[in-house]
């Protein structure tokens, strides 16, 4: 198996950082979020065709080995920058279930397009009022990531992966969420045509869930590092009572707490990533996500507070991270449900 070496990953990290820093100063985050699609389509096209961002994890094609490490690198970088790109939706929610599935011919074809970056995808789960009748779906999803312009909408039901591509019977309506940097839509399906793309065993469904949780954990770790850096910089620069704010022990200890959460979230992300090919993948990913998503909320809130009134202004970026942190806790279903299931399983194995 040829997987990315540490050097490969370092190169990916450095090169992608450069591209993103040039293309996405923080001012651009807001412009992108306010644009029609909610993200910079030109940048996405460049990253997909030029950088190959959508297919790095399947460098030898759909039948080759799956190498998730590049995904985690991208996750940290995008998370730190609040990039609104459809990477989570297309790569994590789109390509990974298809890569892990027993695919139909249609499934392989869609996967190829997604890996090449020619098309985008998302997942519409959970669907309320799901009805499937003779290959047609009715129901609705209230918050679909990149739901307005994703080319394929994926759904898993009873171990089968379905895709919706035909616009007939699909109504998409943008909805504003607390997170300004992740475009979200409500989707209504009325007898929408379903195409069977493959089947996923229960075990593979668990892995897909672990993929999502591990991705989000890395995003949280990236965002955490950024809010920690913002706060530390402010404590150095801002003077009150004739001294830098960072001279006050109460604030030093808050900054240390941010560092602890940053180090620990990065560590739990690594630990989940290290479990990818083991039976402990989902248990590790659940624990990692529960820690990091909580830590991110705690840190984004604390960092904002440390900026004083500035932190509460629209112009300053603190609130974008604060919004993202809360929104991330909900992307994998309610955290309390994840926590409850985890505890129940621990009890069952006692």
């Amino acid at each position, binding site marked *: 198996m040829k997987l990315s070496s540490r050097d490969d990953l370092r190169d990916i990290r450095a090169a992608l950082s450069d591209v993103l820093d040039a293309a996405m100063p923080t001012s651009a985050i807001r412009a992108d979020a306010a644009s029609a699609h909610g993200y910079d389509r030109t940048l996405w096209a460049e990253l997909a065709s030029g950088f190959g961002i959508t297919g790095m994890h399947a460098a030898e094609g759909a039948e080759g080995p799956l190498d998730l490490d590049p995904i985690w690198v991208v996750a940290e970088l995008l998370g730190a920058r609040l990039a609104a790109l459809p990477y989570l939706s297309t790569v994590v929610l789109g390509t990974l279930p298809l890569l892990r599935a027993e695919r139909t011919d249609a499934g392989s074809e869609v996967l190829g397009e997604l890996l090449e970056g020619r098309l985008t995808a998302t997942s519409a789960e959970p669907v309320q009022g799901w009805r499937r009748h003779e290959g047609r779906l009715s129901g609705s999803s209230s918050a679909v990531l990149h739901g307005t312009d994703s080319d394929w909408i994926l759904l898993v039901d009873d171990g089968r992966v379905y895709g919706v591509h035909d616009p007939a019977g699909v109504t998409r309506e943008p909805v504003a969420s607390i997170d300004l940097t992740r475009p979200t839509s409500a989707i209504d399906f009325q007898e929408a045509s379903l195409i069977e793309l493959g089947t996923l065993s229960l075990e593979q469904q668990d892995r897909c869930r672990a993929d999502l949780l591990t991705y989000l954990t890395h995003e949280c770790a990236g965002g955490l*590092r950024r809010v920690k850096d913002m706060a*530390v910089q402010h*404590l*150095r620069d801002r003077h009150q009572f004739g*001294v*830098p704010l*960072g*001279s006050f*022990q109460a604030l*030093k*200890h808050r*900054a*240390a*707490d941010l*560092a*602890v959460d*940053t*180090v*620990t979230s*990065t*560590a*739990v992300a*690594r*630990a989940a990533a*290290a479990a990818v090919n083991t039976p402990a993948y989902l248990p*590790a990913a659940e*624990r*990692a996500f*529960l*820690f990091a998503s909580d830590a991110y909320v705690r840190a984004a809130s604390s960092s904002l507070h440390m900026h004083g009134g500035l932190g509460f202004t629209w112009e300053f970026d603190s609130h974008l991270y604060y919004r993202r942190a809360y929104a991330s806790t909900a992307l994998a279903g309610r955290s*309390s449900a994840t*926590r*409850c299931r*985890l*505890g*129940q399983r*621990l*009890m*069952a*194995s*006692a």
Partner: protein
Amino acid sequence: MVRMQDIDAASVDAWLAARAPLHTAQDAQHTGVALIEESGADEGAVVEAARAWQREWYDAGYAELGAADAAVVRSVAANYRLPDLRPLLIGLHILGPALREHGTAALQRRYLTPILRGEILACQLFSEPEAGSDLAGVRAKAVRVPGGWSVSGQKVWTSNAHFADVAELLVRTDSASSRHAGLSMFVMHMDAPGVDVRPLRQMTGGAAFNEVFLNDVFVPEENLIGEEGTGWRVAMTSLSGERAALGGEFEAVPPQLVEKLAAMALRRGRSEDPLVWGCLADAAVADFAHRAVVEHGAADPQLAGAAASVTKLMVTDLLEVVTSAVLEIGDAEVLLERGASIDAQWSEFILGKPGVAIAGGANEIQKNVIAERHLGLPKG
């Protein structure tokens, strides 16, 4: 000196399998949860068992490994129920690093190998009544005498002084100096004339630490670690070794805490209670985070140096989360004195917890270290 490289997990596993039982789900019923010391345990037997284990461990080549090999060994060893190795901690992780980094070749030969082999147990004579978190306030003094130094002063909070063979001793060698300058570090023998060890009873009821009075104790010249006047630097090496060990590889927390909580819930007929599930999940998350920091805490290049302090803080977080779970699952039973029932063993855990947060530099000191040394915030 035995050194190994590129250890393979299978050989470590085979070695351990021949000498120690695997952890099993039932261990959770049998191993204790005390944090500082096991009350009622036969301390002499614990010390001897630790020495014996370490001798074999060293002879097998596992006592002195590079970071990567040590991590392999640690992860395999985590599957086995090993003897209580806490009597070895100070020698291996506090005095050991100081000797390795600052000691002469002769000093290393004389002390380091026996320490690594469990033949010499150490204690640490740093803190004093007037020098706690502010260690630079050390007053115990050493004056030159023919062939070495004569030491007088008082030390406190000294774990293991009552059975240690040697001490890592921080004293002021320049009487005109103050603060960090003018301190020196020595290896002192605990059976030297003038050393008086008096046990201090802790809130747990046990006496794992002591006051140590030094009256004109002779320490030979060659037992100086590093140069005269560089004691502060040597102390910093020891303290970071201590921080890392307390937080991580030295199992600052009893094994299988989450399994023990689940076993208690089962005994108490609470296995279907969602409140219990939530508590177990919280404990499992905190336990996972603590382990992850031990394993991957240095992954962040900007904060790699802070990993030891972070690990210590995560240990105390874990203990708090587990305590909440203990109280939810075990109810008032866990507040009974140990021995009243199996669940009453948790009272020792609850009583030992404050000691962990204070030992090795109070948590607030760790936060100062992180903020000033690793985040670059102003000192003072």
